[in-house]
């Protein structure tokens, strides 16, 4: 298929960017969105132009590096997938596709479609861990009884890959789905209890410090999240913070 692409180009973090039109031809519907971008970049390199910078790593939907706001949605129109898992069959011949970086004041553009998501790392460092010694004396996992329900919910929360689609799609640029998931994966397990109070307080404080917005429960994040992280995790984080405030 033949497509028109409207892509955000920005030289570096200080430059003023703009949307630029490109044409790509003979795109197979079996290609992933990133492969289509590769075709475009090959074309640009061959004609001596600067290729479009975009983030990617695993290309199998598990690392969370690929981003892109495609036709007004984070990771494009498909559900439960990252951009690397988005296929061109979701589009039609002759389509115009708008491609923008993930937008949020806390995610500044580094170049073109690449944004700085290290704010997420700083939130993780503020409390997204448990302090246990894992060097050689690891305990048997089954030694601590955990209910099936709690284990499942913790596992679901832990599938968050930190891609930032929740922030990008949120009208408030709120990071609460991400932080909710990271708080929940420990809050649900016995191992997470020891540091529970500090964890939620420090992670929320860091989230606020990074300049993410306030959740107004629109639910857009849950719909656009490639891993289907549930809004229940935000409610749990709110509960954890309330509990921490009176402890």
């Amino acid at each position, binding site marked *: 298929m033949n497509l028109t692409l409207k892509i955000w180009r920005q030289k570096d973090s200080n430059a003023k960017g703009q949307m630029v039109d490109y044409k790509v031809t003979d795109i197979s519907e079996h290609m992933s969105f990133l492969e289509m971008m590769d075709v475009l970049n090959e074309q640009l390199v061959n004609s001596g132009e600067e290729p479009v910078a975009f983030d990617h790593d695993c290309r199998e939907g598990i690392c969370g590096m690929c981003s892109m706001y495609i036709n*007004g949605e984070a990771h494009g129109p498909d559900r439960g997938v990252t951009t690397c898992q988005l296929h061109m069959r979701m589009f039609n011949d002759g389509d115009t596709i708008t491609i923008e970086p993930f937008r949020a004041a806390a995610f500044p553009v580094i170049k073109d479609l690449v944004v700085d998501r290290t704010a997420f790392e700083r939130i993780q460092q503020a409390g997204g861990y448990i302090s246990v010694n894992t060097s050689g004396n690891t305990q048997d996992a089954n030694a601590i009884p955990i209910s099936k329900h709690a284990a499942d919910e913790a596992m679901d929360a832990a599938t968050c890959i930190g891609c930032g689609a929740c922030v990008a799609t949120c009208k408030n640029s709120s990071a609460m789905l991400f932080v909710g998931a990271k708080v929940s994966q420990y809050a649900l397990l016995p191992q997470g209890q020891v540091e529970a109070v500090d964890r939620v307080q420090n992670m929320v404080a860091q989230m606020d410090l990074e300049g993410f917005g*306030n959740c*107004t429960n629109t639910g*857009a994040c849950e719909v656009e999240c490639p891993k289907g992280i549930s809004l229940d995790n935000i409610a749990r984080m709110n509960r954890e913070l309330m509990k921490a*405030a009176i402890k």
Partner: protein
Amino acid sequence: MVLTFASVLTNILKMTGFFKSSIGRKVAMALSAFFLMFFLIIHLAVNITSLFSEDLFNELSHFMGTNPLVQFALQPVLIFGVVFHFVMGFVLELKNKKAQGVAYAKNNGAANSTWMSRNMILSGLVILAFIVLHFIDFWFPEINTKYIQGDMSGMHDGGFRYFHEMVEKFHNPVRVGAYIVAFVLLGLHLAHGFTSAFQSMGSTAGRKETLQKLGKAYSIIIPLGFIIIALFHHFNH
């Protein structure tokens, strides 16, 4: 003794820290919203009596207007609640605008969220405009009569004045029209707000079918009730 006092104090200090956090503000927002939603039920219950009994409406209005508990305990809390809710609404909106950064060239909000959830500030502003109008219509004249002129009798021309004063107001079709627009927007505000408030309080109940249905019912019945009352008195008197 000293110890408990100190621990109470540190707890209060911790709580102020809590209410300064993004989530604490949301909890405060939801608490004020719950109070407002409770108030709307009472307000509608009183007003609805005007559809079938002029006397009952007058009695209830007089009680609400003169009972010291209502006047000096509930009323200040209510006014504080309203002011707090919309001031906090503006604060949240401004903070969220700042968090957004550069706007998207193309954003498909309808793909993942409802119009109501994305336009709480708009529906809120219309409700605020209504509240101002409503205060000019009813509240300021009441305060003037009762506390400035000192007439606590609630009487005029040998009978209770409340029913007649209300009917008088609904003669004007422009006012009735404005009320209807405001109540439709209130319904849209509540269609998202009712369940949203549960989520803000850390409860997942708002995401279950029962409360979603209840929220839908509440956000239709309450505004519709007020609309029916305004139309009834407009066309009946």
